[in-house]
């Protein structure tokens, strides 16, 4: 390549000479312009090669990673932010010199909120693009859809969203919360004197695997804590449900006499009609607070918050978390969105899945550097026990179960669509993919066991 470079510069000087000739015939002119174009093309190509050579010289060819988030369809509103933040992390890492001196090259695909397409695109990323890691998925059904692909081809997926647990795949790292890191502590908080001594719980969710499993665990937990079954109500609505009149009427009846709280796992666009109807039926946060597990800052942007003030949410991170690295992270994200002309630019907010997607990239980078390789098995072993100072505070990857140790935070919704943190767990909470309430006999361990195992 180096031998070719002088040739390229010679070509360029030829071009200069040629263009200086004037008064030539039309035919000559055509020939000239052809040569000019060819010259420029070769020069550009060589420039590219030079660039490539430079990056190669710095440590090797770029490392390919995949981003598997829906950019169109119903889930786009949530998932686009995750693509943005992963690309931002990639940009940061590349600016700082890359991974092991190699640049990262992100391959973005759009599974269009279509679960089958998720598996297809995952296959494409792993087999055709040969990416060394994939950051992606939001809904549990999309994760379940890609899981066989990753397991069969020994790929590596970083999954950044809170989920229902009961999964222990060695090809997935779960950087979001398991049920015992979000839902269970939130309900325990509501039952505590500090949280308001609530005694009756209305479990309301969208009808799919995450709310159903979460509520199954919560119900087992409540029963174990001696809450009578009559004080637990469970109800599901279809996706995109818009008419919450009957349900709010039921909640009103349920909450009469006080001591009742609503545990909401309602997902997506049903939240707005639900909160609106709740307020319009004369229910207040004082009568029955709604504790939500799927409403974060990103969702609140699209809502009229006057109906939501005083209601609660449980997450592992909020944009309002007061750490220096978070201030920097939030500012960087806003700047990144503005710089790249993404919709809403500076008005973008960060939230829990965005943070989890972000630190996932860094955890992977640290693991690659520790392993000195991008081989999936080596990287996986290196991820175990990795620590990282995430925007929300120090997090740690579990030693054996593929999940993340995180703090739990309860937040109260404020008028500006941000959360005020009103309770925080002491230290990090250890993730339990198998809940102690519904599957006490099962555990997840890829060091001493082969994934899910029976405890003795």
């Amino acid at each position, binding site marked *: 390549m180096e031998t070719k470079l002088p040739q390229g510069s010679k070509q360029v000087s030829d071009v200069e000479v040629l263009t200086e000739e004037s008064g030539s015939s039309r035919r000559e002119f055509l020939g000239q312009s052809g040569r000019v174009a060819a010259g420029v093309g070769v020069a550009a190509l060589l420039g590219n090669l030079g660039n490539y050579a430079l990056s190669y010289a710095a440590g090797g060819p770029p490392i390919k990673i995949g981003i598997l988030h829906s950019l*169109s369809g*119903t889930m*786009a*509103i949530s998932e686009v932010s995750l693509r943005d933040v992963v690309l931002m992390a990639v940009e940061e890492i590349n600016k700082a010199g890359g991974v092991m001196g190699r640049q990262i090259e992100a391959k973005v695909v759009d599974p269009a909120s279509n679960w089958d397409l998720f598996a297809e695109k995952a296959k494409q990323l792993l087999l055709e693009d040969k990416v060394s890691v994939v950051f992606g998925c939001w809904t549990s059904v999309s994760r379940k859809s890609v899981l066989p692909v990753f397991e069969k081809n020994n790929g590596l997926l970083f999954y950044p969203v809170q989920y229902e647990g009961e999964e222990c795949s060695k090809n997935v790292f779960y950087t979001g919360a398991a049920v015992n890191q979000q839902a269970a502590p939130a309900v325990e908080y509501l039952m505590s*004197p*500090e949280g*308001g001594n609530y005694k009756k719980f209305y479990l309301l969710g969208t*009808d799919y695997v995450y709310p159903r499993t979460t509520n199954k665990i919560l119900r087992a937990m409540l029963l174990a804590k001696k809450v009578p079954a009559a004080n637990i109500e469970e*109800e*599901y*609505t*279809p996706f*995109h449900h*818009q*008419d919450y*009149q*009957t*349900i709010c*009427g039921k909640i009103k*009846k349920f909450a*009469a*006499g*006080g001591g009742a709280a609503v545990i909401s796992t309602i997902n997506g*666009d049903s*939240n*707005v*009609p639900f909160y*609106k*109807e709740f*307020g*319009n*039926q*004369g229910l*207040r946060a*004082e009568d029955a607070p709604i504790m939500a597990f799927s409403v974060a800052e*990103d969702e609140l*942007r*699209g809502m*009229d*918050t*006057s109906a939501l003030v005083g209601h609660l949410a449980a997450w592992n991170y*909020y*944009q*309002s*978390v*007061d750490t220096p690295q*978070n*201030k920097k992270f939030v500012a960087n994200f806003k700047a990144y969105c503005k710089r790249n002309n993404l*919709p*809403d630019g500076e*008005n973008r907010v960060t939230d829990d899945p965005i943070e989890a997607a972000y630190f996932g990239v860094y955890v992977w980078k640290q693991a690659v550097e520790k392993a000195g390789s991008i081989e999936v098995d080596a990287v996986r072993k290196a991820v175990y026990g990795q620590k990282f100072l995430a925007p929300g505070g120090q997090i740690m990857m579990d030693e054996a179960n593929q999940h993340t140790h995180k703090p739990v935070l*309860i*937040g*109260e919704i404020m008028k500006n669509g*941000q959360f*005020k*943190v*009103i*309770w*925080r767990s002491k230290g990090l909470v250890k993730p339990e993919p198998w809940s102690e309430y519904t599957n006490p006999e099962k555990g997840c361990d890829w060091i001493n066991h082969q994934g899910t195992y029976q405890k003795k």
Partner: protein
Amino acid sequence: MSVAGIPMRIILLSLVVFLPFGSDLRSALAAGEEGQTTSSSPQSANPIDQALLDIKSEDAAVRSAAAALLIEKGDASLLPKLDEIRADADRATRQAIKPVIDLLKNHANLTSEQADTRRSAAADLVGTGRPEAIAWLEASAAKEQVWWVKYTMEESAQLMRLRSEDQTVRLLAIKKLGDLRSQNGLSALKEFVETGAQSEATDEQRALATAAQTSVGEIDSWFWWAGAIETFFRGISLSSILLMMSLGLAIVFGLMGVINMAHGELMMVGAYATFITQQAFIAWFSPEHFDWYFPVALPVAFLSAALFGLVLEATVIRFLYGRLLETLLATWGVSLILMQAARVYFGDLTAVIAPQALRGGAQVMVGVYLPYNRIFIIVLSIVCVLGIYFLLFRSNLGVRVRAVTQNRNMSACLGIPTRKVDAYTFAFASGLAGIAGWALTMVGNVDPGLGQNYIVDAFMVVVTGGVGKLAGTIWASLGIGGLNKLIEPISGAVYGKVFILVGVILFLQWRPQGLFAAKGRNADA
């Protein structure tokens, strides 16, 4: 304690709450209260100021003494200070000083000018459990003019009396709660019944249980009726929404034989037009005129959706008349394009804030509460139906539209410009979709998927009602909406939808042409 990204003052105030003996922190509190005028010595001259500090003590005894003093001697003048602490402090702090704030604030609010505030105060006083409040509540109830507020005050007073030690007071309260048909008393009354039913219950407890049983029976039967009325209202409300969505669709489907899958996206256009109008008001007008954005958005939504419809007709549908499946596919494509365009252009920062008049609702009777936004949509749908009726059956244009619907070729022979009628009708139907989108911003959200959520239901109504029949559409939406709300309390929302779908399928097996079939020679046309 949380140290989240909240303003400095909040952190200071919460520090004050947790570390009440630090003198510099005390001055921080003073800064938050009355600008450094409080002395920094621990012994304050004014007992109320002292109590204000003691209430934040870590010692439970000091705290409760201070609370008692504040409740006894304090009045509404303390509220600004307490409110400030309540608004800014974190939840733990609020929980600690909640009873005092609740009592003082609610006591003051009992005489508020706002009926809602008075009622909230009366309801919240129960939670404090302080017997002092009974006298306040009864004094206020005697003066109260608004029946619902008066009711809540009386109910709250009786609820607090239930906790009395005196048997006769309790018996009387139980009876009164029954007379009041108090839903909030139900759980407490049921507890009395349960205690009385136990074998080791005393005679007193048994007497209470008997009285409570009677009251529970009274309340239950009252709420059965109240529930029936509310269910009826919800059915009407859902029907009115279905009707708003299907009106335009029925006209297009009936007149032109076009299956317009983009109808939902025309609703979305109306909703986004409302949002844009709102943003314009925020940008250009003063906040006190903000609520006017909503009426202004009505013509904006109608016209912008109509314009979209006109363009859609001229560029796509015009070329596909008579080809049913192709219109379906083409408009489906258009709807996808519009959705993704909205997603890319607007992102998701699209909250529409309801005008003050359409928030909350009216308590019609005990147990029946009707939200204003729902009433508004019901009235709007009636107005729309009347408007369409006059347009179609009482105007020249309507005669032409109906003529083209019945026999296109004959109308053309008689000199009616059928293509023009098509275009205008399509635009008008699109405008109706725009109005539906405008109204739906009051119950739902503005997002690109808005139309998709409703289009299936709208088609179900149109098909059930009989294609192109206005009366059919009205009856079908009433039937489907009403049935849905009737089934939902029993089966839950998911199976409610399933039952309705199965019901519609069975109905169409029995009457494939829908409720109101086209009759006569052109029935097959």
